[in-house]
């Protein structure tokens, strides 16, 4: 927004925004700080913020005990794989509903969302049995299938609502000019939709990365992603805050870094500023 603002106003807004942002971020910051504490210091009261003996011992312990890279690899394959497959299926569907809506479009959308309403805990046993018979237990493929299907409705929804903002008149105009459907998609729709697709993709990767019910219960050792990594550090007998904090920091780090680098796309991608 290119509005003229005074520096004083800008400073005021900045202070307010930074204050709120740090407040929201604080639990994560606290986790990261705690990961450098000893277990005893982690539960000290009053809490110490910086003035403690910084140690890497929790990270050393985590590194010794777990195959962190295997878990990261599994998480990456599962979240990227499911996101790409889901995108392949959802883009045409969202396009179709956004530009050729019928009387039933809204119903179809609602129905798609409603497929997510069956609580996962209720269907674990049937799924486990089916996966056992298909040989999909503890495989990345098995998890990719589940996450693809789980997030598909959300993807379609998000893409649909972005596509909806692309004015139909532009497309109408192309068609008048005799553009084929293929040309329409490649030259007109795609460039306009890329930012939206990119941010949908990013959001979906995050959701898949954080999924912790199926990824934990369908995997055993080979396909175990970061959710299982976390579960091996939470709540043992004895103090575990520093170790869990270290494991959490390691689990969050890749996705946070990805978010950091792509946050412009994540945000700008949803704007369609150029369209309006």
């Amino acid at each position, binding site marked *: *927004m290119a509005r003229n*603002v005074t520096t004083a106003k800008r400073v005021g807004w900045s202070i*307010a*925004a*930074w204050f*709120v*942002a740090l407040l*929201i*971020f604080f*639990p*994560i910051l606290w*986790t990261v700080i705690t990961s450098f504490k000893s277990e005893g210091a982690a539960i000290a*009261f009053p809490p110490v913020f910086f003035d403690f003996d910084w140690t890497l011992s929790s990270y050393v312990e985590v590194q010794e005990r777990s195959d962190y890279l295997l878990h990261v690899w599994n998480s990456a394959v599962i979240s990227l794989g499911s996101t790409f497959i889901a995108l392949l*299926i*959802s883009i*045409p569907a969202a396009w*179709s*509903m956004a530009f*050729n809506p019928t009387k039933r479009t809204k119903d179809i*959308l*609602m129905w*798609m*969302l*409603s*497929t997510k*309403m*069956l*609580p996962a*805990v*209720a*269907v*674990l*046993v*049937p799924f486990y049995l089916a996966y056992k018979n298909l040989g999909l237990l503890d495989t990345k493929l098995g998890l990719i299938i589940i996450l693809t299907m789980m997030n*598909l*409705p*959300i993807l379609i*929804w*998000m893409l649909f609502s972005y596509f909806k903002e692309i004015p139909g008149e532009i497309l109408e105009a192309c068609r008048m000019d005799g553009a084929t*459907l293929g040309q329409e998609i490649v030259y007109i729709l795609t460039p306009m939709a890329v930012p939206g697709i990119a941010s949908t993709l990013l959001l979906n990767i995050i959701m898949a*990365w*954080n999924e*912790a019910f199926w990824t934990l219960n369908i995997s055993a050792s080979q396909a175990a992603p*970061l*959710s299982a990594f976390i579960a091996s550090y*939470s709540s043992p007998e004895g103090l575990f*805050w520093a170790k869990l904090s270290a494991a959490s920091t390691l*689990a*969050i780090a890749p*996705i*946070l870094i990805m*978010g950091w680098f792509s*946050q*412009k796309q*994540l*945000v*700008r*991608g*949803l704007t369609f*500023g150029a369209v309006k």
Partner: protein
Amino acid sequence: MATTQMRTTARLMLAPSVILLLIWMVVPLAATLYYSFQNYSLLNPITSFAGWGNYYYFLTDPAFSSAVVNTLLLVGGVLLISVVGGTFLALLIDQPIFGQGIVRILVISPFFVMPTVAALVWKNMMMNPIYGIFAWLLSLFGLPPIDFFAQIPLLSVTIIVAWQWLPFATLILLTALQSLDGEQIEAAEMDGAGAVSRFIYLVLPHLSRAITVVILIETIFLLSVFAEILVTTNGGPGTATTNLPFLVYTQALLSYDVGVASAGGVIAIIVANIVAFFLMRIVGKNLEA
């Protein structure tokens, strides 16, 4: 107007999604319906036909009615916090501030944290009445600590879940906000419209679709929250934080009673659809835009 050919193509493009989702819905649903009429416990491998017994058992559970209420309160509470909070956050971040990129990443980062981790961190490091951060803050003012999970259990869980979903709402609303016509705002400013009336007459209508999307998508996820409850309160004290998914969980993964858990799953779908129906009535019209 679209041609017939266009219509056909459109249908073809929609088909894979619909077919896959249909399978995804029908197979588990059929299995769930089947098991919901069976006496089937994992730990007791003798099965028999149960009739409506499992449904009767789940519906007459003393915790059932409070579970429905808690489910709705949790969904409503988180929606309220994340939509209202998200709108203000989005407006705040949209201001010309120093380090906008960093502020943005700080605000959306709770979204990157796994639910179980978030719950563990909040329960033990933030809300613990003896060595948590809040207890420490209150003690600075000479106030007694709040015993979060005993005095305000459902609100505490709501806060934790809202913390995770606030970034999502902020993100969607922020992007919507950025597509707002700056000139229009400036014109209104020139005409002497105050910040509040600019917000009510210009910004809010512009955000209505985004808010609808946030509400719908979050509702779907919030109806099935249970990891946070499991970690913090185990559904207690009493049934103060037991929602429907948690009730199903106690049947499925504590009692390993597949029959009752399936009946609970079917009931949860019905409740979710009722919620969705009313939701569509209230906010659905925004979708036609």
